[in-house]
């Protein structure tokens, strides 16, 4: 048995209906002069917090070196399997490093793909990364003419991530 809720009896003033209509009209009239809350999208954009989870991107450190050491933890943890990494070696005949060789680092990604049609923006890759090389950026406008365009390769990922300046300088003095 459901609970029966008695409808409130209206007072005679409320039953007149017209005063209530006038009250409502006053309400909407006041609303007309309030500041609008919409943004003029292409010109104005929403400001995001730092932990907004947009498209993931790879970052370089202060000296422009790639931070990723292609440990493949992100590839492993990625729930929808959007990440594919082909590891490469630094130094030697198959050198993949773009900048000068750092002897402390042995590996760098030869190829790095994130399929944005699969990505669910969970942020696990950022969380799991031991080198802090992958971050969720505030970029949210993803579109392309073909499916291939939405599979971000290494160049595109560095373009999205850019250079991250923070206080940790892992290889300084080493």
């Amino acid at each position, binding site marked *: 048995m459901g609970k029966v809720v008695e409808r409130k009896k209206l007072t005679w003033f409320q039953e007149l209906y017209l005063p209530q209509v006038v009250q*409502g009209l006053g309400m909407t009239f006041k609303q007309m002069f*309030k500041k*609008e809350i919409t943004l003029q999208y292409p010109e104005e954009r929403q400001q995001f917090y730092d932990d907004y989870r947009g498209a993931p991107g790879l970052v370089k450190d202060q000296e422009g070196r790639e931070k990723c050491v292609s440990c493949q933890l992100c590839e492993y943890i990625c729930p929808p399997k959007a990440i594919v990494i082909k590891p490469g070696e630094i130094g030697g005949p198959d050198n993949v490093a773009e900048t000068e060789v750092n002897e402390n680092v042995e590996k760098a990604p030869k190829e790095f793909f994130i399929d944005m049609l699969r990505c669910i923006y969970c942020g696990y890759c950022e969380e799991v990364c031991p080198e802090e090389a992958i971050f969720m950026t505030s970029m949210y406008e993803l579109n392309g003419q073909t499916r291939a365009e939405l599979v971000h390769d290494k160049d595109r990922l560095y373009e999205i991530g850019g250079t991250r300046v923070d206080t940790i300088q892992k290889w300084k003095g080493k």
Partner: protein
Amino acid sequence: MSFSEEPLLYIGVNLAKIIIVTHVVLVVCAYAVLAERKVSAWMQDRVGPNRVGYFGLLQPIADALKFFFKEDIVPGHVNKALFVLAPAIALMPSLIVLAVIPIAPPVVVMGHTVPMVIADLDIGILFLFAISSLAVYGVVLAGWASNSKYPLLGGVRASAQMISYELMLGLSVVGIFMATGTLRLMDIVNLQVDGVWNCFYHPIAFIIFVIAAFAETNRLPFDLPEAETELVAGYHTEYGSMKFAMFFIGEYAAMFGFSALVAVLFLGGWDIPFMSSETFASLGNWGAVVGFISFMTKVLAFMFLYIWVRWTIPRFRYDQLMNLGWKVLLPIALVNVIITGLFNLPKGS
């Protein structure tokens, strides 16, 4: 001035009046659509159209172009003749009724006094009600000809609603004619210019007339024929491009017509408080300009009320609509007629 005395001048002046009135009305209709969108946006903390031209002022032109260049689709399952006829019937009465509405004090052209109404009929108000009721045929025929369920439901609702509220509309103004003793809209305005506005003499009739006008023009809170939340788009579900635009213009033209009628019947037409007909006459043709501006101000203010109410009050349920019409407004209108009659007894006898 009559046709027999100066045929060419007569035709010229009347053509000029027709062209001016039609164009003013159609431009006002186009911008009423923009106003509707702007006002609704403001009331909902939005911005509204602002891309086409400064402040979105060219939006009506963009809309019109869009309607003109859209493909004119006639669905295969419709009754073609009626389907094409219906939008025209919906639009034309709204424009025809403007013929009897006086818009300004008389103008003097080449020594002739020209009344600023296209057709100064002695039975102006009867003509107006007779023609404006025809608009319901447009809606009903559209519903019938579309040969699909939502338009038909819209059409059925429209016929019931408009026939019911036509009654209150007519009854509410009976009091005015009893008090003024004329059916000519020009005379009614002149009496108000030198006297008191009818909305103070007949406040109850005023309120009933306004409510019935909302129902007659199918505007919220009485837009049951359209009822987009229940009937897709009601009677014009199957329509597109210019035919839909004609329904749309028809709705706004009807809004304009009824706003003008309220201004003429209850708000003194072109009158400005504390100005008599002599003051207007002493200004010469400028008096007509001032009068026209005053008249348009009242009409536009009333059209704003239409828009304002639309974005405030939710739609009535069908039975509530009928209850309000037959059990509330009709008795009040009848009692109002009797009371007005009692007040005017000494005058008549």
